[in-house]
């Protein structure tokens, strides 16, 4: 007796096959970490991370839960600063500027390095106000019509405009999960960031909503440097140009996505992507 199953998903190798060859990972970079260690109190969460992230590409961070990929993502806009008792060693530079240098304006850094969270977190306000908020607090609101224009443009960039244009004053919490997440993306794009950090942005969404987010991520790289954390290796293979594999707080391998998924140089990476653990 045979059990019928749905169509098997394409293999990781098939997803990345036929890609145009990308330049290697070293070269011009937007974000660079050098010898970075990160501590929660006494516990070391990241160990000697050195990585160069290229501009205008999508870079994926993969690895098992608790491997430090989200922690590392959140050091890039200093979101970890909110947590008491953290400590960072080494340097992280964005456009050559050390973002942990004393005197860094964290607010300015976070405007430039936008973030989308795992669980969509729209403000309990109207759809319009969600997008306008960042513009207002950063003094980018301008006149009423400039503000409205910028809100529309952001919603369009996040592929949400057509669905919400007739109810901009309605509550953001009435939107579906996928729409809420795209609203959060629109909100982040409104303040004109250069980098967009995404922390498992589709992990709580259904397959259709996930697909829309992935298409969006793929298109965003024309204007933004995107870094995405994901549990889903298929997703990493589909959307990213470069992939970094984290394991136990260390960066094991970082390379072109097609290479990571077809011919990884580390045994650990191979074991992980073939599902031998994790």
């Amino acid at each position: 007796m045979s059990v019928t199953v749905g169509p098997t998903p394409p293999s990781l190798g098939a997803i990345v096959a036929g890609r145009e060859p990308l330049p290697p990972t070293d070269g011009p970079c937007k974000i660079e970490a050098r010898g970075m260690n990160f501590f929660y109190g006494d516990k070391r969460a990241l160990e000697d991370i050195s990585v160069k992230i290229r501009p205008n590409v999508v870079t994926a961070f993969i690895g098992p839960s608790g491997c430090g990929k989200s922690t590392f993502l959140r050091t890039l806009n200093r979101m970890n600063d909110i947590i008491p008792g953290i400590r960072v060693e080494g340097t992280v530079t964005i456009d050559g500027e050390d973002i942990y240098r004393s005197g860094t304006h964290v607010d300015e850094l976070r405007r430039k390095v936008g973030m989308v969270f795992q669980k969509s977190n729209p403000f309990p306000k109207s759809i319009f106000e969600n997008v306008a908020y960042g513009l207002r607090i950063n003094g980018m609101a301008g006149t009423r019509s400039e503000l409205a224009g910028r809100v529309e443009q952001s919603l369009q960039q996040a592929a949400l405009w057509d669905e919400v244009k007739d109810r901009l004053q309605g509550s953001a919490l009435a939107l579906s999960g996928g729409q809420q997440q795209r609203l959060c993306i629109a909100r982040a794009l409104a303040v004109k960031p250069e980098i967009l950090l995404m922390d498992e942005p589709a992990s709580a969404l259904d397959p259709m909503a996930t697909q829309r987010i992935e298409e969006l991520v793929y298109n965003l790289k024309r204007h933004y440097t995107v870094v995405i954390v994901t549990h889903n290796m298929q997703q990493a293979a589909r959307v990213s140009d470069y992939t970094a594999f984290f394991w136990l707080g260390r960066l094991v391998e970082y390379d072109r996505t097609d290479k990571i998924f077809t011919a990884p140089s580390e045994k650990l990476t191979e074991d992980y992507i073939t599902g031998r653990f994790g």
Partner: protein
Amino acid sequence: MVFQVVALLVLLLALAALAALIVDIVRDGLVRMSWDFITGYPSRRASQAGIFPALTGSVFVILLTALLALPIGVAAAIYLEEYGRRDLLARVIELNITNLAAVPSIIYGLLGLGLFVRLMAMGRSVLAGAATLALLALPVVILSTREALRAVPGSIREGSYALGATKWQTIWHQVLPVAAPGILTGLILSLSRAIGETAPLITMGALTYVSFLPSSIWSSFTVLPIQIFNWVSRPQLDFHANAAAGILVLMTLLLTMNAVAIWLRDRYQRKVGQ
């Protein structure tokens, strides 16, 4: 099962006691309840005495109390919850606030007399009364505001910070609006307590016989509980009917206040929620 029955009986007993009190008050007071009673001024004759100065005084004092207690209480709570460090000093302050909530109200009256009436030379004015009641209301306002701030999901703060908002922008634009219904509830509860207070206002020297309306925050005044207390202490039975009617007015005021506040809170919750 047995426990449920016992619990239900105890609850019904409490409700029955409350109902009996209300029925008693309504029976005594309803005969005196009229428009003339509400808009009338005190008199030596019970049948002509009215409650208007006390009612006006109560409303005036409680509004001023809210105006004083809300900004100070919310500011204190924001400092303690969002800015203050978690050190020994913070713990001592917290312990003190919790204790202050349980201090007998007459002590606040003595403090009001010494601090506001005498030292700050406010006299026995509406302002001094409201300031005294604001002190009384503050601990509850602070505690409930801290609860409300703590209940705001961290994801909302993170979302705001991630857009480049400063701590203050985040608190002002995102955290406070979400916390507002909870803050409002705390304020109502504390004002409900304050509006029924007699002892602190008598201690600080509010008048018991007032035949004029307070015209400014510097006027002398009386409030409903003091007027009721005054009538109850008269030997003539007619005045006792006045007291019962006064209690009805006070209860109506209190229930209206609570109803308005609950309505405001629900409306706010709907607006931000859906």
